[in-house]
């Protein structure tokens, strides 16, 4: 329990202390122990929870993409696997599903030059301007160069059967966090349909937070990271979860499945080994058309059920469920497409996870993402997200308390994109509104312009 709490509190303090976003700058960093009754108002805690969550997102996913080590190993451009770095195309998806192997006899390190080692590095820096408006009034304006970071990670296949990933991130302020860490056994019994991964691994989400645009600010992930107002649970499908993943796919990864059995990340572990079990699963199918403007359609369904311990001795497990569906449409070209991604998700939490709750809270959320790649190093994109609380945990709360709207547009260009490194520039604007969370029932809206550069090698 002590170790877990130290780990958790250290991470929470770390991320809240270091993020430049204004909403985080106003954060209440005095976190209450999870599973215990807070001594602050629901609204204040809601605000702090949200700030912590997005600060964590900002940290964790700022660097979770682009693996030049693979380009070096296989002698291919980054664009072979990425529709536009870091978003995977179908070839990249198959490569990932194969355990980061090409399966052409060159995956084993012994088949490569002795000097090669599966290490990679990332460096990034960004400038951000934020304007926060509350109830229609500007309450804060600030900008500046954010806290940069260096990532020196390892990822790839060691033998033909074993793949691994370990990614520590070192920030300029001296803090270090470890992103994913896992080992995978590839092709059990010789079948692509059975691959086993052990460790802390990302869940197979439709729009993968670790491989999306907004290289320095993954606020797009509000939908995944959302928890109902007042919830004590830290569970989110957005975060890597410690456990076992079993996944499989056909040749070319047009049909895939994945199942994760995990112990909910960050949960207190006072009374048992597997204190807060959870499960996540997803199935996808991609269909390609031989002719016509519509090139391909990918559809998927996913669901998660996770538990979180509550009560004085954290022995009472309470559940949260998430169900969703998604569809990708590829238009015009497989290589330089116009892509639309639609996703819907619904969630329901046990009322015991929310202090003072009188009913199980429910919410619905949706996302629409549009991307266009007119030529290889250039991509335009836009994203809409809405979150609507269908049933508030506390009866009598405003219907739209905690609802969110998020809109984003951006452009990314690669100044260099070769087999040794990638150098990216990105300009993004987003607007993010959280409803009724200030005293008096006003909305909080953030307008942010973000300009960043990212070097992957």
């Amino acid at each position, binding site marked *: 329990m002590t170790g877990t709490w130290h780990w958790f509190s250290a991470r929470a303090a770390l991320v809240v202390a270091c993020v430049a976003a204004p909403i985080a700058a106003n954060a209440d960093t005095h976190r209450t122990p999870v599973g215990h009754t807070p001594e602050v108002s629901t609204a204040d805690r809601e605000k702090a929870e949200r700030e912590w969550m997005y600060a964590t997102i900002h940290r964790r996913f700022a660097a979770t993409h682009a693996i030049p080590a693979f380009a070096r190993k*296989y*002698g*291919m*451009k980054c*664009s*072979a696997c990425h529709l536009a770095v870091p978003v995977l195309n*179908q*070839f990249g*998806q*198959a*490569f990932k599903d194969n355990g980061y192997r*090409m*399966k*052409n*006899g*060159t995956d084993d390190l012994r*088949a490569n*030059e002795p000097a090669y080692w599966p290490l990679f590095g990332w460096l990034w820096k960004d400038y951000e301007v934020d304007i926060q408006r509350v109830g229609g009034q500007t309450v804060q304006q600030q900008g500046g160069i954010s806290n940069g970071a260096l990532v020196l990670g390892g990822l790839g296949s060691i033998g033909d059967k074993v793949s691994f990933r370990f990614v520590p991130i070192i920030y300029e302020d001296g803090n270090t966090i470890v992103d994913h860490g896992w080992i995978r056994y590839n092709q059990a019994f010789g079948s692509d349909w059975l691959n086993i991964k052990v460790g802390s691994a990302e869940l197979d989400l439709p729009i993968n937070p670790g491989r999306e645009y907004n290289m320095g600010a993954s606020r797009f992930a509000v939908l995944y990271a959302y928890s109902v107002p007042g919830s004590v649970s830290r569970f989110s499908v957005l975060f890597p979860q410690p456990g076992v993943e079993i996944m499989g796919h056909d*040749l*070319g*990864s047009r049909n895939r499945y994945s199942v994760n059995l995990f112990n909910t990340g960050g949960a207190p572990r006072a009374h048992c080994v597997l204190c807060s079990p959870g499960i996540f699963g997803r199935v996808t199918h991609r269909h*390609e*058309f*031989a*002719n016509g403007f519509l*090139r*391909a359609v990918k559809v998927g369904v996913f669901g998660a059920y996770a538990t979180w311990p509550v009560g004085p001795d954290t022995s009472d497990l309470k559940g949260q469920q998430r169900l969703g569906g998604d569809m990708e449409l590829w238009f015009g*070209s*497989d*290589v*330089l497409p*116009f892509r639309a991604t639609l996703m819907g998700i619904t969630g329901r939490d046990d009322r015991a996870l929310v202090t003072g709750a009188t009913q199980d809270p429910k919410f619905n959320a949706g996302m629409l993402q*549009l991307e*266009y*790649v*007119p*030529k*290889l190093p*250039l991509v*335009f994109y*836009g994203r*809409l997200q809405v979150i609507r609380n269908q049933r508030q945990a506390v009866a009598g709360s405003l219907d739209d308390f905690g609802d969110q*709207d998020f*809109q984003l*547009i951006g452009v990314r260009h690669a100044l260099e994109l*070769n*087999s040794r490194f990638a150098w990216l520039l990105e300009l993004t604007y987003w607007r993010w509104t959280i409803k009724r969370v200030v005293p008096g029932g006003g909305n909080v809206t953030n307008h942010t312009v973000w300009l960043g550069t990212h070097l992957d090698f």
Partner: protein
Amino acid sequence: MSTAAVVFALIVGALALGATPLRAQAGGGGDPGRGRQVYERYCVQCHGDRADGAGEVARWSQPRPRDFRGGVYKFSSTPYGFLPTTADLDRVIQNGLYGTRMPPFAALSTRERRDVIAYLQTRSPRWRTEGPGKPIAIAAEPAPTRESVTRGRELFEANCTKCHGDGTGNGPSALKGMADDWGAAITPANLLLGRGKWARTARDIYLRITGGINGTPMPEAGDALSPDQVWQVAHYVQALGGWSGSTPELRQFAAQLAPPGTEAPSEPAAADTTKR
């Protein structure tokens, strides 16, 4: 409403900036214009912007990436010296070439592969003056037996050891050094690995023996071997290297035979009983 306007403006602006006209469909159904896009994404790093096999990483590639300008493709189902069929090119793109830097591109859509093939066919004037060769007719495969494997070993001894030696590619010619038509040093295949760059089955071995490998010293069998004899060699290689489809019994049997190039076969060659 404002959100919708922003998104609409984004889409329209992006389309206007990036719109490129689609070219007319090329022969074979692929579009070379779109094929160029596929090529630039997946192929250019090795095969080069001019399709000359001199891409950015070509210097570190062994064997060297293919130079498409001459229209010479090593692996095909057509006789030596002829252009490959579209299916041949598609096979290499889908499966890759094992043990080389050419990975399998099975994840590419049928249309992407078709387009990039159409583009490759614009890179050599041969495609404008010649059609693909007629695929080699493959005789019905007889069941492999001890006798056919033994005969195959004899034929291997007589025809293949000069380069392939005991099967590992250590023949006298190989030791002197060999080069392909592009001047790159090459080595004969190690047949004991159980698969080749292009070949996985006895049928694939049959095709390679019959058709040879374009641009390399590996000749076509021509009239030197009858179809039955080609199958015998194929079955011997299959058993010797434990290739897909070989039986444990024949693998064990082949292992007991003296390696080619060392001494006479341990068993006398029996009459050919593999004919159906």
